[in-house]
């Protein structure tokens, strides 16, 4: 018998692990966030930035660029990345499907349709209500959430396949409607496509204050279901044998996750790929225990999206690349590399 295996049979208290993760994670996100304040069209030296952060500054332009343009964008990126990653991880858990992402249960397609309708309206009526776009998107998301929930109840609610199929079906329906809108559109096409690819450029503190609460409360609720998600990976019946009401668990996670996603994508558009890949990377790094994996995914997602947004801004500056394209272009090679290393 291998001695090292026997020695290591102890269990490590996850609470200590969790506290460490939260402390280190927050620190790293903070450091990277501050570092990324350096990037932008106007050159501001790191010294000036540090000076501004510590003492404040008299220079109004610098103040405006840092506090009203760069900082909110970084904070919004961090929140969005964290939200997409944890919800993606939780959805993979309830659906027992590693291919699931936060968009698979239809809520994002609803948001997208809502936003596209809003954009079309704007052009037809000539009335500029860009600031109401998030409301359109959120209403669309709630509509699709309701439809998916209802149709999963009609089929077989005690089964993850029922929920998955309802989500995929509603996504197809809404995507078809979006395609119709895109086909009919002329000038508004560019805005629609940009929205569909995701965009953090319109970040401001007001938006952040709106999504902050749903993201924090929602994620806390997901973390408290982490043990149940672990049990669900043994299978539907096994989880029931462990005293877990799997039907209720699935609906709970679906609703919490969808509300988080609806709030976030209403402001940022559909930033793809993060919610699919970050949970996998988190699992490769720390194993599949959702109590550890979900918080790690949150921090990784935050860092990943901040960095992708910087790349989106500087790669072809002054032209901005849609961030949804960057996440995939950077993420796929990174993921394949990690997968290979794990298998060696």
């Amino acid at each position: 018998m291998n001695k090292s295996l026997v020695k290591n049979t102890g269990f490590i208290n996850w609470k200590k692990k969790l506290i460490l993760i939260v402390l280190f994670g927050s620190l790293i996100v903070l450091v990277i966030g501050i570092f990324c304040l350096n990037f932008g069209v106007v050159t501001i030296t790191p010294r000036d930035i540090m000076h501004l952060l510590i003492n404040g500054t008299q220079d109004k332009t610098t103040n405006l660029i840092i506090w009203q343009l760069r900082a909110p964008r970084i904070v919004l990126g961090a929140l969005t990345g964290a939200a997409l990653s944890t919800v993606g991880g939780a959805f993979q858990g309830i659906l027992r499907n590693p291919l699931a992402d936060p968009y698979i249960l239809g809520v994002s397609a609803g948001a997208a349709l809502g936003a596209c309708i809003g954009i079309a309206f704007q052009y037809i009526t000539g009335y500029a209500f860009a600031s109401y776009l998030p409301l359109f998107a959120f209403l669309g998301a709630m509509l699709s959430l309701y439809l998916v929930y209802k149709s999963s109840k009609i089929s077989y609610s005690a089964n993850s396949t029922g929920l998955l199929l309802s989500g995929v079906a509603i996504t197809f329906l809404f995507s078809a409607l979006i395609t119709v809108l895109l086909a009919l559109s002329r000038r508004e096409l560019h805005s629609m496509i940009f929205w569909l690819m995701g965009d953090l450029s319109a970040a401001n503190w007001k938006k952040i204050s709106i999504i902050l609460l749903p993201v924090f409360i929602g994620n806390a609720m997901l973390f408290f279901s982490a043990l149940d998600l672990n049990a669900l990976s043994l299978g539907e019946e096994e989880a029931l044998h462990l005293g877990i009401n799997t039907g209720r668990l699935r609906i709970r996670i679906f609703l919490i996750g969808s509300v988080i996603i609806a709030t976030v994508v209403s402001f940022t558009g559909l930033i793809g790929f993060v919610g699919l890949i970050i949970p996998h990377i988190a699992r490769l790094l720390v194993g599949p225990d959702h109590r550890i994996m979900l918080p790690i995914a949150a921090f990784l997602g935050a860092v990943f999206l901040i960095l992708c947004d910087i790349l989106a801004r500087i790669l072809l500056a002054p032209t901005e690349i849609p961030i949804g394209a960057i996440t995939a272009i950077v993420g796929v090679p990174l993921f394949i590399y990690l997968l290979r290393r794990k298998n060696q």
Partner: protein
Amino acid sequence: MKNCHQFLTLKDICYSYTKNRQILSDINFSLSESELLGIIGPNGSGKTTLLNVISGILKPYKGEIFIQNHNLNHLSIESIAKFISVVPQNTWVTFNFKAKEVVFMGRMPYISRIKGESQEDYKISREAMIKTHSLSLSNQNIQKISGGERQRVFLAKALAQSPKLLLLDEFTSHLDLTYKYEMLNLLKNILKKENLTIISTFHDLNLASIASDRLLLLNDGKIEKIGKPKEVLNKENLYKVYKVKPILINHPQFNVPQVIM
């Protein structure tokens, strides 16, 4: 009450998935503590369904189940999980958990989601792994160990649940001969030491005959016969249920009937 001294009682249990096909009809039997009951019967005779009805995840449309005088219908699935644990036939796990993490999931019914687990929970999980000789698998990826090893890990998980009744579904089906008899001895040891009652379905009649105190022979959802292996495994019963005429001999060591073709 008549069945006060009985550990488990099933009364007139009827179950069907759809209206026109009855899966279980009028199942009546009782079990005393520390007994090992083997359920046998052909494919589709309702063995696994009966197990799922006893574990509470399928609700019979008629009849009642009492476990230590608690009516199973009145217990939540959380409380049932503290009485009954199950080793399933299918032991596939979606994500690559370590074996010890799977065993620890057995403590789930006892862990507060807010406070988290205690040292006691770790201790019980570890002991369950020692009892099932699976401690050396602790840090192995559950997806990468053999079917037999996974079976032992799942048995450890079921024991970590500190149940009073253990249900096994075709427990030995993935194991080769060596492991089958090792597992059997393991179970008998656990049965003696732990004050556990076990119900197991068996595909292999000879193994069932050696392992069980009593056998329950199911035929098309009804109890054909329940009793000691000698009373159940005879030519008439086997012909009635399996439609074959096998030869029966006596096992020289265990003194129970064995079926050969």
